[in-house]
């Protein structure tokens, strides 16, 4: 195990912690921007440090295609290759294959897929995924799991869960750098509480450095989503970090953190920036909208980032979707927003004012008090009273 997880404060199920990784001491709740190909689109590493980014997620599948893990290894690992002194996490590559390549097929041996280079069938085994990640050298590496869409039901979910458990042992056995890299196991089991429970128990028995909740953020309804998160966080060990994969939206992160999750990753902030959308306390702001042309306010008047301090919505409107600078500046703001959200969650938990923070957050996002029911339900389980920001008759729409 190459990490320490020190809880600094709690509020019911929520926790604020210090996650000590080989390359950086991170504060949780923690948002991890996605740097698919060894860079976060449009930002330099010094800008990422500047805005408080603590850990970056790299995608194993893409890095293995180019420049290859072998080259990264030869040049001293991904930290050195991209000159990023802080923490890194790599995924297993399996999810990317299943989601990007239609021809991926999962067997007991591994994930079979058609090579995007020459079309030949290739196989990614749990052993291979770990070997590749060992070469890339991230602080946290992920076990290869059998990913199925959460919207699928039936025996395939059960098969995937058990296979994920069988594969974790192969991953553990293949892991050559346990003193420098932390292998996280991934809880599968779809939306079935029984299967999730079996998976959590199985993984916890392996005493891994951390655990991820997988198979979510794939189009399932929000009520099922938070219930799975709540179930898993309740069953996972207190003294280990919990990572909800592929999440998410600011609201999801607030809810999951209240339920006791610690880590998140999502391409949304940077992807949506490239389409001209800014994340703001009220939700989103489409800078492409023609009303922005003569709006001389900052993108988010409450934001302290370089972009909001300097630019008006009208100027950003001029840039978005036409000039590279538009997506650079909006990505900067959006990541700043997400990292600030993480820091605010961290400090409000430590200072014992998480309910006030959550209420303030919800009030801005739902000024009419129409907080979605799933959020209300999740907050009840989290023991956070949000009645002050809910309308007397909460609407039942999602």
């Amino acid at each position, binding site marked *: 195990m190459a990490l320490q997880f020190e809880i600094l404060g709690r509020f019911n199920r929520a926790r604020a912690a210090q996650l000590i990784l080989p390359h950086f001491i991170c504060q949780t709740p923690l948002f991890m921007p996605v740097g698919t*190909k*060894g860079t976060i689109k449009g930002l330099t590493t*010094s800008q990422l440090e500047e805005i408080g980014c603590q850990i970056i997620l790299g995608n194993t599948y893409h890095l293995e295609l180019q*420049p290859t893990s072998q*080259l990264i290894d030869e*040049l001293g690992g991904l930290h050195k290759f991209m000159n990023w002194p802080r923490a890194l996490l790599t995924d297993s590559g399996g999810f990317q294959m299943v989601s990007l390549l239609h021809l991926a097929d999962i067997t007991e041996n591994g994930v079979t897929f058609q090579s995007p280079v020459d079309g030949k069938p290739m196989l990614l085994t749990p052993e291979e995924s770990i070997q590749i990640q060992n070469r890339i050298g991230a602080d946290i590496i992920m076990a290869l799991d059998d990913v199925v869409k959460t919207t699928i039901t039936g025996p395939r979910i059960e098969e995937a869960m058990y296979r994920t458990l069988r594969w974790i042992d192969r991953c553990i056995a293949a892991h050559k750098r346990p003193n420098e890299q932390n292998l996280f196991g991934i809880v599968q089991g779809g939306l079935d509480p029984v299967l999730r429970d079996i998976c959590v128990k199985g993984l916890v028995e392996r005493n891994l450095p951390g655990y991820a909740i997988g198979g979510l953020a794939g189009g399932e309804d929000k009520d099922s989503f938070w219930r799975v998160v709540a179930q898993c966080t309740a069953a996972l060990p207190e003294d280990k970090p919990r990572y909800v994969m592929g999440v998410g939206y600011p609201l999801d992160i607030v809810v999951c953190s209240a339920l006791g999750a610690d880590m998140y990753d999502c391409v949304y902030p940077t992807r949506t920036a490239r389409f001209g959308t800014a994340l703001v306390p009220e939700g989103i702001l489409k800078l492409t909208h023609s009303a922005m*042309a*003569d709006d001389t306010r900052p993108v988010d008047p409450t934001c302290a980032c370089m972009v909001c301090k300097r630019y*008006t919505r009208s100027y950003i409107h001029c840039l978005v979707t036409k*000039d590279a600078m538009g997506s650079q500046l909006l990505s900067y703001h959006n990541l700043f927003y997400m990292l600030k959200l993480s820091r605010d969650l961290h400090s409000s938990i430590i200072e014992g004012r998480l309910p006030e923070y959550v209420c303030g957050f919800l009030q801005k996002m739902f000024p009419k008090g129409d907080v979605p029911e799933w959020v209300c339900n999740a907050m009840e389980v989290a023991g956070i009273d949000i009645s002050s920001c809910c309308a007397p008759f909460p609407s039942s729409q999602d």
Partner: protein
Amino acid sequence: MKFAVKAWSKGRARAGVLQFVSSSKSSSPCPTEIEIETPALLLSTRKGLPFFISPDLLPSLPSPDSHLLQFSPLHFLEGITPETITTIGGLHEMLGLHEFRFAAVPRDSIVCLPHCEGTNKLGASFETPFGRILIKPSEYMKFIDSMKPNSWTTLADEVPAWVSQKRNKTSVDRTVRWLDDCIALSSKGGNIFGAIVGGSSVEERRRSAQEAAKRNVSGYWIGGFGLGESMDDRPPLLNAVTDSLPEQKPRQICGLGLPEEVLQGIDSGVDLFDTTYIYHLTTGGFALTFPLERFVRNVSDPQLSNMGSDGTKINLNSEVYRKDDVPIVDGCRCYTCQNHTKAYINHLLSVNEMLALILLEIHNTHHYLGFFRAIREAIKGGKFEEFRQQFIEDRRERDHIFTAALSA
């Protein structure tokens, strides 16, 4: 704005100082004076910001050398109105760059280009991202008034080298008339750079320059170059212009980008150049590598690559840099070279990542500013001609070694 020539190097090449006094009446937080030594580079921009270098990264470029930005008002034809720009308080305020100085030039040489056939007596025509447009002096001046640049160039009828003598003459007539129109229309004053055209006719060039010299302007903008004339055609045309202009006013040019072209312009007494060349290098994946120290004969180990690299630049798209674990230029003090290797930039280019362009624009701009610094030193030392000869010879030599190495 004040300008003073401080040194001549035998011929026409000159070194000067461009001084911007505190930026107008506006309550700008940085009213400091800026002194920029010439010959200097005006960094080309898209909508007032460098193409890929975001404002927080700008301070990593040498200061104050990098504090002159050139922009095209035509970039703002869509998306924002002059009224909104006025409400915001002008360009400095809109861009949050109070410590920078802005020079407006109608065309940008990249996406806004003069369209000679479309230009008529009413206004100048341009090919732009919003289609072909005709700009009248009154429309142009509305933008200038709202943006409040530190200097601005009057509207010109630029023609390519191959037009008839008659068309060329018309272009000078129009440009002179628009010069008067723009001066008359400019309510806020500012530093006016009078446009000079004249195509490839020495007489028309001289006439255009003489007319501009008669007007009350702060400097001159020489247009109509880089439009089909050959390098050898240029010196007499350039000299006809600069010889007709008063010595103590700055001369800005458009259309000369390559190092050899810059040296050619300086040799004729031009003071200010733009960086469209840097843009083309950067988007092509090129990095400037020629040695900057005067008389340094560093002709060793050219990298083997047949992808357009030569003695002055390398193409980082090339496979040879895949494992190249060192910076673009050893000892370069730019952000890119201080932080990243050629191997990383090669990777970023091969997967089409925006960071490649950011890093290359930083290095190339830094490098080219260094080239200008070296030129100024040579002029001050009275050795510009030697510097120029040396540069051209070195390059020839490097090209030679390079070709030999390639064919070996």
